[in-house]
């Protein structure tokens, strides 16, 4: 299953709930304000690293750029994809769950 999340983890509980519900091995794509969860050096870094050990984490590149977040400032292991990669992730997985 592909899980997408679009909320800042500092503002809303969507990232938390997504990580609680996603089964090991799932794809998780951070889009819109959820890309803020990908920044290294934050208070969430440990939690995201732990999640990344069980899940495949992605962040949407256009949303990172729009917000001025450089790819080299991301937590290790988070892969950046474009809208084409978003479509490919959705096609590849049998079901998509959007945590809003």
């Amino acid at each position: 299953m592909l899980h997408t999340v679009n909320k800042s983890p500092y503002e809303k509980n969507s990232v938390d709930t997504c990580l609680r519900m996603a089964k090991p091995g799932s794809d998780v794509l951070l889009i819109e304000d959820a890309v803020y969860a990908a920044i290294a050096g934050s208070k969430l870094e440990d939690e995201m690293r732990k999640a990344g050990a069980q899940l495949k984490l992605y962040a949407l590149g256009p949303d990172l750029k729009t917000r001025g977040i450089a790819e080299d400032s991301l937590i290790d292991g988070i892969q950046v994809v474009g809208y084409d990669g978003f479509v490919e992730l959705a096609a590849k997985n049998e079901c998509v769950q959007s945590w809003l």
Partner: protein
Amino acid sequence: MKFGILVNEGPYQHQASDTAYQFVKAALDQGHEIVRVFFYHDGVNNGTRLTTPPQDDRNIVNRWSELAKEHELDMVVCVAAAQRRGIVDADEAKRHGKDADNIADGFRISGLGQLIEAGIKADRMMIFGD
């Protein structure tokens, strides 16, 4: 592959409509089919032709209308949500005694069954909201 798209927020206030648009464009570029774009909740506000955004900004409504024309997209605005929020076509205006309508090109007003049907027909249902 067949994608169904649900847009739950209006233009500008939330990024949902922007992301949905970019996703649909990318999916079409890859040769996928878009079964339907369904606008629900405040998403119905994407379907008004009365917007005039600043010239240095994107025109979200027109962009949907143009994409729909180019790719023969079926763009459906939920009738119940539209009635609550004041999105009407000529028929709805007549039915409810309104003196104007505001639906934009390429959008049509229909029931929630169209959303369920999209979920049944599509291989993947994508939700963009707040």
